[in-house]
């Protein structure tokens, strides 16, 4: 039952958990960001990487460790509640893992189609905001336009970026983004359900916090996975290409 892969999974999970604890218990796990809470976390990244490289179970265990660390370390009442600090964190690595497993074999054309679906969803959301009138019968005009413009800009930017990338890198980025969003959405969702935040405040934090965290997570996860799996273009040093001369 215990082959090399089994041992490797246990050991890698342990080391990813060690990085999580290191990031969570020192200040390096926090990156200053222009949001009310002041920091974007990168301590959830080992959970995402665990999910990507070792599978959903390892993602879940590292996420559990992250949740437990953030519970022990919490300095705001919200995170001293295990339902907010631990429970949502279990899913970070799991959603990232399944996104990666589902899209791993995707071609560029399929990823483009996915972008099209995303654009359609954004436009649909904008239309819904416009179509449902407010309580006094007026309609929102600015917000749907804003959503649509931002959505088109986002999808356009992603399209250009995807065009120049190895599709495997794009899938890794997508999985990282999904894992990071899982963290943001579930933590804030549970926090507002438990009454620590009103839904409006939660939405505000979600937008100002979730977006920088997604970007940071995608950048770091791509770098790590590319380094470990050797995908993407890597600049090789010219010096090391020449075999050393033996004297």
């Amino acid at each position, binding site marked *: 039952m215990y082959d090399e892969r089994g041992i490797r999974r246990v050991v890698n999970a*342990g080391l990813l958990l*060690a*990085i999580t*604890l290191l*990031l969570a*218990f020192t200040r390096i796990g926090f990156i*200053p960001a222009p949001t009310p809470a002041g920091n974007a976390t*990168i301590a959830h990244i080992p959970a995402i990487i665990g999910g990507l490289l070792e599978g959903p179970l390892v993602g879940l265990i590292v996420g559990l*460790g992250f949740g437990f660390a953030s519970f022990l370390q919490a300095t705001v009442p919200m995170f*001293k509640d295990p339902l907010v600090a631990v429970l949502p964190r279990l899913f970070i690595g799991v959603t990232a893992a399944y996104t990666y497993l589902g899209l791993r074999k995707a071609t560029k054309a399929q990823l483009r189609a996915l972008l099209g679906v995303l654009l359609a969803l954004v436009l649909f959301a904008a239309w819904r905001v416009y179509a449902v009138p407010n309580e006094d019968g007026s309609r929102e005009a600015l917000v749907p336009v804003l959503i649509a413009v931002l959505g088109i800009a986002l999808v356009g930017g992603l399209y250009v970026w995807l065009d120049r990338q190895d599709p495997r890198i794009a899938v890794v980025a997508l999985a990282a983004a999904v894992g990071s969003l899982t963290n943001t959405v579930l933590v804030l969702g549970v926090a507002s359900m438990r009454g620590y935040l009103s839904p409006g405040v939660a939405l505000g934090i979600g937008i100002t916090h979730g977006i920088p965290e997604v970007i940071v997570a995608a950048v770091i996860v791509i770098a790590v996975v590319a380094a470990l799996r050797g995908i993407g273009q890597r600049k090789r040093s010219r010096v090391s290409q020449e075999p050393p001369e033996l004297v």
Partner: protein
Amino acid sequence: MGSYHALRHVSIGQYIPTGSVAHRLDPRTKLVAFVLLVACTVITKSYVGSLALLGIILAAVLATRLPLGYVLRGLRPALPFIVVLSLLQLAFYNSAAVAPEAKVMVDWGPVTITTASVQAVVVALLRFLGLLFLTSLLTNTTTTGALTHGIEHLLRPLTWLGLPGHEMALIATIALRFVPILGEEGEAILMAQASRAVTPERSGAWRLIDSASRGARLVVPLFVDAYRRSEELVLAMQARCYHGGRGRTQLHTLRLARRDATALSLVLAVFIATLLSRWITVA
């Protein structure tokens, strides 16, 4: 250079030996008691219940003879956050949806303070204090070794369900062992970068990409190093014929004493009382 030396000294709740009864309890007892008391603290919503629980927990902290100032030390940097968040909560808590019967105390346009929002804030603060004490109660009286040992024992029933109880405890042990090692590695990376004129200072909040690449510069080599170390450890474990938790015996076996039974029954009584009080108020 002082900032480079901080990484090595990571403590997840420093163990403080005072030789009290709580220190001598079996780690399994402490873990179960911890989980039960956390559950109590989280489900209590009334003033009386929260105060009573906090009193019980405080009594337990005093019984361990841990210096109270040390336990409360973690609170100081958080104080401004707590005050601001509590005020926001007080002013914008959506009482109408959660508790429609609450009385309105102050009503200034968008800011309404009701009895429900006051209760939510006060109970959240009491809960926070209680959980802070509880965390300290567990981690300051138990060594990490005893803790993982206890976790492994408690997770043992999971293996009957086919879940990896032993592996989870092993993962926790490896993680705790490697935190200081990776911390040193992180220091080495920072120093190596500093010697090549990479400034380690944090940039401003608006230069997000800059800060992110700064974070990446430290974290990416750390991951690569962790994977290299993991290969070495895998090889070492294979060389020693590691085959999982089955049939494994331990040098130090855990034994439950009478004090464990006493502590557990006290905690269980508190837990049942909490459940009953909640059930009665609901009914």
